[in-house]
C-alpha cells in the first residue's frame, strides 16, 4: 500500500508545485490526512446515520473516552505511544462488548446504563492518562484528545483502510438487518435476522471506526463527527437514501475543509476541533434551511 500512497502523494505534490492545487498540498502530512479524510467521511456518514437512528450517540462517546484509557494502557505496557493500536482496539472492544452484554442483562434504561459506562470510561481514561503523562510528550496527549494531522503515518492509513474494508464487507450486507433489529426486533426475527448477533456486530463496527479515526479527529471529538453530519443531513432529508448520502457528503466535506482551512489560513487549531467546527457550521446552515424552507419543515413530522 505504501507504494500507492507514495504514487498519489507525488502526483498531488507535483500539481501543488505547479499551482494547480493549493499550497498545503505540498506537504506530505496534509496529503496523508486528506487520504484518511476520504475514507473517514463515508465511514462516519453511513455509520453515523445508523447511530442516530438507533439512538446510540452516547455509546460512541463512551467508546471514544475508552480509547483514552486504551492509549494509557498502551503506554504502560510499552507499546509505541504514537500508535498504541493493540491496546486501543483491545480495550475499546472489551469495553463496548461489556456494555452491550450488560445492556442485554439489565432492566436499566439504555441512557442510564450508557451514562454509567460513559462516566467509568471518562474517569479511567483521565486518571490513567494523567498517571502516564510523565512518560510521554504533552503533544502526544493533545493529539490523542483532539487529533493531529502531523501524527498521521502509513500505519494509521493502513489501519483505517483495513477498518473501511471490514465495514464494507461485513457492515453493508448486514445494514438492513442492523437497522431493522433496532426498529422492531420481532419483525427482524421474522425476516431471519439474528438480532442479538447484529447488535453486537454493530457495536464492534462503531468501536473499530472510532479507534481508527482517533488519530485525525481525537478521542474527545470523534463522537461529534459521527453524529453532527447525520444530524445535519436529517434536517434536510425526507428519505433514508437522502439521509445517508448527505451525511456522507457533509462528513467528507467537514474532514477535507477542517484539514485544509487551518493550513491555508494559518489558524492554530487542532484538526479534530477544526473538522467538528466545520461540521457544526453545516449543521447550523441546515437547521436554518429547515426552519425557513417549507419543503424541509415537513422533513420530520
Amino acid at each position: 500500500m505504501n507504494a500507492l500512497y507514495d504514487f498519489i502523494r507525488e502526483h498531488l505534490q507535483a500539481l501543488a508545485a505547479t499551482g494547480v492545487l493549493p499550497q498545503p498540498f505540498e506537504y506530505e502530512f496534509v496529503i496523508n490526512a486528506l487520504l484518511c479524510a476520504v475514507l473517514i467521511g463515508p465511514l462516519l456518514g453511513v455509520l453515523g446515520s445508523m447511530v442516530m437512528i438507533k439512538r446510540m450517540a452516547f455509546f460512541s462517546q463512551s467508546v471514544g473516552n475508552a480509547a483514552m484509557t486504551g492509549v494509557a494502557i498502551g503506554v504502560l505496557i510499552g507499546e509505541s505511544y504514537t500508535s498504541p493500536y493493540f491496546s486501543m482496539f483491545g480495550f475499546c472492544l472489551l469495553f463496548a462488548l461489556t456494555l452491550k452484554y450488560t445492556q442485554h442483562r439489565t432492566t436499566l434504561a439504555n441512557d442510564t446504563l450508557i451514562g454509567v459506562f460513559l462516566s467509568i470510561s471518562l474517569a479511567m481514561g483521565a486518571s490513567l492518562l494523567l498517571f502516564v503523562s510523565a512518560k510521554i510528550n504533552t503533544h502526544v496527549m493533545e493529539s490523542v484528545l483532539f487529533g493531529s494531522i502531523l501524527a498521521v503515518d502509513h500505519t494509521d492509513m493502513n489501519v483505517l483502510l483495513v477498518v473501511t474494508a471490514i465495514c464494507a464487507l461485513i457492515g453493508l450486507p448486514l445494514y438492513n438487518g442492523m437497522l431493522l433489529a433496532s426498529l422492531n426486533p420481532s419483525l427482524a426475527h421474522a425476516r431471519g435476522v439474528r438480532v442479538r448477533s447484529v447488535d453486537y456486530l454493530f457495536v464492534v463496527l462503531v468501536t473499530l471506526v472510532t479507534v481508527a479515526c482517533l488519530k485525525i479527529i481525537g478521542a474527545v471529538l470523534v463522537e461529534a463527527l459521527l453524529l453532527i453530519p447525520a444530524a445535519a443531513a436529517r434536517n434536510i432529508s425526507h428519505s433514508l437514501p437522502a439521509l445517508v448520502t448527505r451525511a456522507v457528503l457533509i462528513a467528507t466535506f467537514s474532514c477535507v475543509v477542517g484539514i485544509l482551512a487551518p493550513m491555508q489560513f494559518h489558524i492554530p487549531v487542532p484538526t479534530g476541533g477544526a473538522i467538528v467546527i466545520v461540521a457544526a457550521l453545516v449543521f447550523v446552515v441546515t437547521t436554518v434551511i429547515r426552519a425557513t424552507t417549507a419543503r424541509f419543515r415537513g422533513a420530520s413530522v
Partner: protein
Amino acid sequence: MRGPAIVFDNVSLQLGGTRVLDAVSFRVEAGTLHCLVGPNGGGKTSLVRTLLGQMPHSGSVRLEGEITTPLGYVPQLLDFDRNVPMTVNDVMALLGQRRPAFLGSSRAAKALRAAALARTGVAAMGAKPFGSLSGGQRQRVLLAQAISPVPWLLILDEPTAGIDEPGVRLVEALVAELHDRGVTILWINHDLEQVRRIAQSVTVINQRVSFHGSPAQWENVR
C-alpha cells in the same frame, strides 16, 4: 403446495419471575387459518415470539413441511420514531431486500413492493414518511411487507387493530386469498365474531391451552 404445520410441544415461558406460558401444546395443521384468542396478558404474543425464535423457552416449537420463502409477520404495532427520515418505500426496502436500503432498490424489487402496497390499498403512499402515517395506514404497510414475497406461513398479531371497516374487509379478503393458495395462517385475534366467521380452527390461551378445536365446537363450550 401447502404451508407448514406448526407444532407447539409443552412450551413454557417465564419472564422476570412471572410464568407467561405453562406447558402449552397444540398443533396448527398445514395450510389452515388458525386463530389464537385469549385475554390480555394471556401469553398469545409471547407464544408467537417463541415461534419467531425471540423468546428463550422450554419445550419445543417446530415447523413441519417445506418452507421456501421467509415467513410473513405483522406485529401488533410498530413503535416508530416519527422523526426518522424514512419513507414507506425505505421501510419496505429494509424488510424485503438484501441490498442496503440507502442504496435504493432494483427494478424487480420496486415492482414487487408496488404490487404489495397496491394490494393493501396504500399504493400512493410509497414516498410518504412512514412516521406521518396513521395507525391504520401503518398496519396496511406492515401487511404489505408481510406478503412481499408471498409467504408460506403468515403470522398476524391483531392486524386489524386501529383499522377502519374497509380496511378490515380488505385484510379479511387478503387473508382468504392467501388461505386459498395454501398458506398457513396464525392470527392473534380479539374479534370473536370475526374468528367465528373466518377461522378453521381456534386455540384459546390463558397461560395454558384452555380450548383447541373448531370455531363451532368453541361456540358450544363457551
